[in-house]
């Protein structure tokens, strides 16, 4: 049995996937925290443990993500854009347009029928349209990030946000709450604000169907639906969208050893 490992050290979360023969055997996710190097070890150990494996059993490791450079036990690093492509090809082979909502960046990636990246585009310099936005709002609403999804679906009157700044949106949310706005409506408002930024990216690069959302932001069904509605298309979401890039990295690792 030949095991390979894919590690995605994101700016918010680190993800590890262990594969064998092109199949996912186990995975783990944990916050990246401040020390990428330690987290990378910890998250891969966590994934390995589930299989009773140790790093020594791994034939090839591909690291990706913002902190890929700190993974000293990786055989290779690949950008997360390519890994996303490889990952989505495995999950949804029909997907040609991929929206990745990570903590710092939102990206749109176009892939070909082999999961290879054709082109990509991302938000720049301002956290306005990124997943960080969700985290900030969750904190204000005193809810867990995983609660956003269900809660937002109950919204009836989405609040309109006048600022695009993730930091000031916080104070705006706070004042809306004091005016009696419901948390669900606030979340829906944030979703609208984020979706319009993301859809702009999609339009710029061109939508080719089918379309999927990945990254931690994809766990937010409310956001995914809002984006889908804005794009007037059905968007696919994997069961574990957050590990897509790590999965892609693991698949690329298997490719390397099968060469």
């Amino acid at each position, binding site marked *: 049995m030949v095991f390979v490992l894919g590690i995605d050290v994101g700016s918010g979360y680190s993800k590890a996937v262990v594969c064998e023969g092109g199949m996912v055997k186990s995975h783990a996710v944990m916050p990246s925290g401040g020390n990428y190097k330690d987290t990378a070890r910890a998250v891969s150990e966590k994934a390995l443990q589930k299989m009773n494996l140790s790093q020594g059993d791994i034939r090839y490791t591909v690291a990706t993500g913002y902190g890929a450079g700190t993974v000293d036990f990786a055989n290779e690093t690949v*950008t997360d*854009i*390519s890994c996303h492509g490889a990952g989505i090809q495995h999950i949804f082979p029909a997907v040609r347009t991929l929206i990745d909502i990570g903590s710092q960046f939102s990206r749109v990636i176009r892939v*070909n029928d082999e999961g*290879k*990246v*054709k*082109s*990509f585009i991302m938000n720049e310099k301002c956290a306005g349209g990124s997943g960080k936005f969700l985290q900030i709002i969750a904190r204000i609403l005193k809810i867990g990030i995983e609660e956003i999804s269900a809660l937002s679906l109950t919204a009836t009157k989405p609040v309109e946000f006048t600022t695009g700044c993730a930091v000031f949106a916080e104070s705006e949310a706070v004042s809306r709450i004091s005016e009696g706005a419901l948390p669900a409506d606030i979340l829906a408002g944030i979703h609208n604000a984020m979706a319009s930024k993301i859809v702009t990216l999609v339009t710029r690069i*061109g939508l080719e169907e089918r379309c999927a959302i990945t990254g931690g932001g994809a766990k937010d069904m409310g956001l995914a639906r809002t984006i889908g509605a804005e794009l007037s298309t059905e968007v696919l979401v994997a069961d574990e969208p957050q590990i897509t890039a790590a999965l892609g990295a693991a698949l690329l690792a298997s490719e390397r050893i099968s060469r």
Partner: protein
Amino acid sequence: MAEEKKGRAVATQTAARIPKFVRGNLSATLKAKEEEKKVAKAFIADGQDEIMRAMDIVPAWGESFSGVCAAKRDAEKYLQKAESDNFSRSLCTYATCHIGFEMIREEQGGAMPEGAPWGGMGRPDMILGNGQLLCDPRFKWPQALQHYLKDVPVFITNMYYPPWDPNTDHHEQEKFYVKYCTEELRETVKFCEKVTGKKMDWDRLAAVVELSDKTWDLFVDTYDLRKAIPTPMDTGDAMNTMVPLTFNLGTQEAYDFYVELNSELKQKIAGGIGVADPEKYRLIWAAGLPSWFALNDFQYFNSKGAVFPVEVTYRGCEKIERLDLPKTNDPLEHIAWRWVRYWTHWYDAARKRHGSTPKVERIIEYIEDYKCDGAVFHSAFSCRSWHAGIINQADVLRKVYKDIPILIMEGDIVDISSYNEADTHNRIDAFIETLEAYKGKQKK
């Protein structure tokens, strides 16, 4: 165009001579007084080079000065000075950097600001602008500058060319455009005569114009050598080797420079020497002025096996023959024809391809001629002129031509505050992987 702090390794030796050109141009503005010549704050790509050269007017290039400041990562203090008098940060940073510099000098009673790069630039005796279609700063910068240099006369020419319109034939309008440009150039001459107190020597002007034409031809022939695989010269170098054409047009040195470059490139081709070894991807720099403080990024591309054999930027000329210029004995009219035809000579091609635009046609032509695999655009936030409409160009390129990999980078020409090297390299990495996939797919 300039030597920057870290010292970009240049692939061609000829390009290594460029800093001398730039320094020479700057110091000419400082020495002009002794030599009893007049200095004109002028713009590149404004059609007035030959008039200045024929009248011994020393051009003080604001763009060059600001570019040098940026390359030395020394522009911030000038940008801040301009900002302190309410010039917005969103305005052209070439302009605000230069204006900030002049503001400081005036405040110091004319003394050169301390630490001005390469000795700084001389105070102008006149300001020449052009209300042409290229950009607003080309006539607003002079006006804004006069607020600080109140005694310096300003003259604005207007040189237009027919706008792109798929439904009209621009050839029908050429005549009156050329007439207008010629008249405007004549006004420029009159103004220069007034300031310098000298009359134009028309024979000399004719000779200078002829030299420029020759330089245009030689430039294009030389750059065409870059079609070779592997390419002997990259855009990173071209951002230097454009200097003689852009800043020294109408001088013998400029011509001689391209003679030298030409022979160096031929030698390289003969020896099979390329910029990148191995050369894996050929790219077009499809639009945008570079970030002068980050020219090293070209080397980063090279280190990944990607080269730029061709760029749209600073290729401000074409083979004269291709422009099919009507005969005339008036050198000004000749400049006007050259101007109008240069800016419109992709119109016919664009009209033939439904949904296309001249800018995109130009890119397509280069992609084909130089066998490019992908296109990189740079969108600098402070200059609308070259950097607005890029999304549209990329979109049209995809629609009317091919879905080739495209990278649009966002940044600025002078203002370093929005630049992040790690992010930029990340983006380049991902783009390289895209190219890899694209080429892999094509082979199959």
